[in-house]
């Protein structure tokens, strides 16, 4: 089931890389409509290092080397650097890329199978989380979808594809390189 697959994934996947597409789904007078779609690439290495790069509709990337989060927007040529101090713990990134004490931040529960994908619910234990509900879709031992519902009921459906498990990353794969001429804002 999903929970066993997910626990095995967390245990034996040191890192991965692949592509994602993300759809923002809104309820407009009762009907679920896709309001925005975005896509890009991701890579992560446990514990807590990841790069989440949007290429469409614009180039923006979120990257962490484990202690700082770098948010870069290409059009603005600006980088915002935030101290992580644990801020990653309850975010969706922590689910895929975090470390094994994930179940400290999330209550995991099986949620059955839909269209051949085995789902589990991850409910944030923190009261002030930005998420009302997170769903993780597992298939053949890999996460292939994340359903993120925020506290306003807006849903982001993230699907992962061409996921390569435990690729051999370059040593400084997750070291942030400041783009030339970029303006830096420290948080």
């Amino acid at each position, binding site marked *: 089931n999903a929970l066993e697959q997910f626990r095995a994934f967390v245990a034996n996947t040191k890192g991965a890389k692949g592509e994602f597409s*993300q759809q*923002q789904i809104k309820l407009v007078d009762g009907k679920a409509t896709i*309001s*925005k779609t*975005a896509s890009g690439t991701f890579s992560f290495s446990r514990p807590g290092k990841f790069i*989440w790069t949007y290429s469409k*509709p*614009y180039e*923006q990337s*979120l990257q962490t080397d484990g202690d700082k989060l770098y*948010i870069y*927007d290409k*059009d*603005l040529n*600006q980088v*915002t650097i935030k101290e992580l101090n644990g801020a990653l713990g309850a*975010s*969706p*990134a922590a689910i895929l890329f975090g470390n094994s004490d994930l179940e400290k931040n999330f209550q995991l529960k099986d949620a059955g199978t839909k269209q051949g994908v085995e789902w589990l619910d991850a409910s944030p234990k923190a*009261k*002030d*989380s*930005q*998420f009302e509900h997170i769903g993780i879709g597992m298939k053949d031992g890999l996460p292939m979808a994340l359903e*993120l519902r*925020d*506290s*306003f009921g*807006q849903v*982001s459906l993230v699907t992962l594809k061409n996921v390569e498990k435990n690729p051999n990353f370059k040593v400084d794969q997750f070291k942030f390189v400041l783009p030339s001429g970029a303006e830096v*804002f*420290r*948080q």
Partner: protein
Amino acid sequence: CATPPGMPRATESNQAAQPQTRHYREQINLSGRIHVQYQHNDKAQSLPGSFEWSQDHEKLHINLLNPLGQTIASIEQDAHGARLQQANQDMRSAANLDQLLDEALGWPLPVAGLKDWLQGYSRNARQTPSALPTEDNLMLTADGWQLRYVTWIQEAGEIRPKRLDLQRYTPQAGAVSLKIIIDQWNTP
């Protein structure tokens, strides 16, 4: 009805070539990026994020989202006043929206002004929106804000703002900078 004499008939070819005459839209849906910088207890704050703006004759609805797409604040304004809902907080309402946002967000979001500025207009003496010249790096001051229309874009035969930077100083939020990039523009 026949075109008034002397008015060139907008044929298909020249209509696509030169942009249609612009007009202010009461009904419009916009979304894009907003990067907010301000000071809180004189520590610099930098909030990259995105926004959704849907406006019609009776109502204005604005969503502010974080870089991963989760809603941080939802703002609504209509004849009955304005309401702000922030994640995990009680709904707040007030007659004056801009003041409510100043207090709740900790930085000023000039909603009244943006209703014109996002479309490349500014209110003239007769309080009606008047079209601004579509020049890159056009600078002007309005409602205490310095505006810079960094770039414009022609889309579907119409020229509209692409990137707009706003700056001002406020006692509460210090040097405030809002960088707005309009990525989606649809007029139903």
